[in-house]
């Protein structure tokens, strides 16, 4: 019953094709029906295959379906083949389930847009690419999905391309992603040459068999991770994600929160043998993840744009996932990916609902007290915030705790401390967001206030479903302290994850860690409550006290500007200089110089050409006579 899993990506592909060709002529209702329906069918097939997978014994993982040989030349072979194993199952389910809900939500959100069919074409294309990414059985095909989602992200960020900022953001996203992709590609080339195949099973065997030197494994792992930092917006390539919020909100929810940005995590988990084999690479991943988690959290503190706060929060949460992967707890990382997909898309969609209510307003300073206007959005938003903040009994708590516990267990105390710090920040900025938006004084502009309204059911129902999952999704991966076999998720993924050295904590330590997590989350919430509801003057005082720090955070550490001055401008200016001085003056100058030199020489000689026939005849005869003389004497 699992044999049909390869149809999962093909259904959205077919739908994309139809929409791309006929989209403009189809009625909106049909478009929405087809686009959502395709993703829903994919979801059903995924679910069906997943159930089938449960019956397959772990020895048979992964189940591979080879459609045809795609590229074959000499030693290079890439197949168009899909595989299905627990990791793929989780990803495919997340992508199709969340994707379906967001598609449904978009019907309401994009209802008035004039490029309705383009939107759904791209959304379906994205779903297809993402499914290819997670279902590919080799690196090359995975790269196809990898680039494909990047392209869709480019198109969807720049969906409203008349805005300069949107077009710019799309381009920036694509180019920054490409920098990462270059690293990924180089890593892939190394694997191709040294392993001779890009099938994941062959790569795993080769690395496990020790046919690659340790240094090489580290190198490849780090190169692949460069690709992950690009796609998953980690230091130093995270700069595109905040700008990516220029896209429609469902896009931000689907691509820039739930699925695409977590592709890097998926990739690291998929290639886990590299990071298990090379401790250095693992540590690099964990440290980058941890630093990003805190760093992005600090930037979220001062942002006033509701979507940008969520964007930084996404960067930070992905940092957690990388911590999990870096310390060898791949299942925990993927677990966080899975829970995060629900609550973060929930938060984005709820934010979208807020925007929808406020005629597109994004600035939190112009909100406040929305609680009473948005009776469905508010509770769902709150659930999402509680989940992400790490309050016990909601999904985010279990997954974040699993990661931090693993980090601690592996002795990565530095990473653990950063993780805890990040957790405080997360709780703080999320509740700052809640309080500024839904509580406190109303600061809504009167013009906007007139049109304020709750979103239609087609938008709120997906919110409710996501909120439901945000609450319960965590219960498939309960902490070990609650029982030996309660972490079903860990066991499910275990067959394909290569364990490094196992480290066990005592029950007491684990409880202690959980306690710390809880305290930290509640502290963050309390500080936010204190700052923004109890004493709204405190933040202002702080700003006045530390103007430099505030400006640094507010301007995102000036990293965009730094990149601009360090990389973009020198490249452009340098190229312009080379073009003017070298290309035009020297190379072309040499060419034209040769031409004008010839011309000058010709002009000098042309005085011989008097134009009189007799002169020519005389010279001609002279020549003939001399030649004749030479011949006979």
């Amino acid at each position: 019953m699992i044999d049909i899993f390869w149809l999962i990506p093909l259904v959205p592909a077919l739908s994309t094709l139809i929409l791309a060709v006929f989209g403009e002529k189809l009625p909106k209702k049909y478009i929405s029906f087809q686009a959502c329906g395709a993703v829903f069918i994919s979801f059903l097939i995924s679910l069906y295959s997943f159930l089938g997978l449960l019956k397959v014994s772990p020895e048979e993982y992964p189940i591979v379906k080879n459609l045809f040989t795609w590229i074959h030349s000499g030693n290079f072979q890439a197949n168009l083949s899909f595989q299905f194993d627990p990791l793929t199952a989780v990803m495919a389910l997340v992508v199709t389930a969340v994707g379906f809900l967001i598609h449904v939500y978009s019907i309401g959100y994009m209802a008035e847009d004039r490029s309705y069919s383009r939107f759904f074409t791209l959304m379906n294309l994205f779903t297809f690419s993402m499914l290819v990414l997670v279902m590919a059985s080799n690196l090359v095909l995975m790269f196809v999905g990898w680039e494909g989602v990047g392209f869709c992200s480019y198109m969807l960020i720049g969906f409203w391309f008349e805005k300069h900022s949107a077009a710019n953001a799309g381009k920036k996203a694509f180019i920054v992603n490409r920098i990462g992709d270059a690293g990924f590609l180089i890593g892939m080339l190394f694997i191709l040459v040294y392993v001779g195949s890009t099938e994941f099973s062959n790569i795993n065997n080769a690395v496990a068999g020790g046919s690659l030197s340790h240094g090489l494994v580290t190198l490849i792992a780090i190169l692949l991770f460069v690709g992950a930092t690009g796609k998953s917006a980690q230091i130093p390539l995270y700069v595109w994600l905040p700008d990516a919020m220029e896209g429609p909100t469902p896009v931000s929810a689907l691509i820039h929160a739930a699925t695409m940005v977590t592709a890097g995590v998926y990739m690291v988990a998929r290639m886990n043998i590299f990071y298990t084999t090379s401790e250095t690479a693992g540590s690099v991943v964990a440290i980058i993840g941890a630093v990003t988690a805190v760093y992005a959290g600090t930037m979220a503190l001062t942002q006033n744009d509701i979507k940008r706060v969520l964007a930084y929060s996404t960067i930070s949460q992905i940092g957690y996932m990388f911590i999990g992967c870096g310390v060898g707890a791949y299942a925990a990382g993927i677990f966080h990916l899975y829970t995060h997909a629900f609550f973060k898309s929930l938060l984005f969609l709820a934010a979208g609902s807020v925007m929808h209510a406020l005629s597109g307003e994004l600035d939190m300073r112009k909100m406040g007290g929305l609680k009473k206007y948005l009776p469905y959005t508010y509770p769902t938003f709150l659930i999402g915030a509680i989940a992400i903040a790490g309050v016990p009994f909601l999904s985010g708590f279990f997954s974040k705790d699993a990661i931090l516990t693993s980090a601690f267990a592996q002795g990565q105390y530095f990473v653990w401390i950063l993780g805890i710090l990040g957790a405080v920040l997360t709780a703080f900025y999320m509740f700052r967001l809640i309080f500024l938006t839904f509580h406190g004084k109303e600061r809504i502009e009167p013009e906007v206030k007139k049109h304020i309204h709750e979103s239609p059911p087609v938008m709120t129902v997906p919110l409710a479903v996501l909120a439901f999952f945000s609450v319960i999704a965590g219960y498939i991966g309960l902490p070990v302290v609650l029982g030996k076999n309660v972490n079903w998720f860990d066991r499910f993924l275990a067959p394909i994850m290569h364990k490094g050295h196992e480290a066990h904590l005592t029950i007491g330590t684990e409880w202690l860690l959980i306690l710390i997590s809880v305290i930290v989350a509640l502290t963050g919430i309390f500080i936010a409550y204190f700052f923004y509801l109890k004493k709204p003057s405190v933040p202002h005082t702080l700003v006045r006290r530390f103007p430099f720090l505030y400006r640094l955070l507010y301007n995102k550490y000036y990293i965009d500007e730094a990149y601009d001055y360090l990389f973009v401008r020198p490249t452009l200016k340098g190229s312009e200089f080379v073009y003017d001085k070298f290309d035009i003056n020297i190379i072309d100058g040499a060419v034209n110089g040769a031409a004008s030199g010839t011309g000058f020489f010709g002009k000098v000689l042309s005085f011989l050409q008097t134009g009189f026939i007799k002169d020519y005849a005389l010279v001609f005869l002279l020549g003939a006579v001399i030649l004749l003389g030479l011949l006979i004497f």
Partner: protein
Amino acid sequence: MIPIYYFLILSAVLFVMGTVGFLIKKDLITQFMCVEVMLNAANVAFIAFARSASSLNGQIIVFFIITVAAAEAAVGLAIILLVYRQKKSIKTEDSSLMKG
């Protein structure tokens, strides 16, 4: 029988006279006549060789030369007329458009 060399020497003399004439005359028509003389000199040589080699090829060639000369004269004279119309002169000195 006249020795063949007589003819050849005559041919040479005619040729040189044509050449020198071409150089020292100043109007296009006479120069053109000198060219005809040079052609004729060649004809004499051909006929002489044809005779001594007992081959008709030489005569045939002369025949063709005369035909070509006729064609050439027609076109050449037409060009001279054109030059005259343009410049109101047939002196070669007056035409030097090809000056570099």
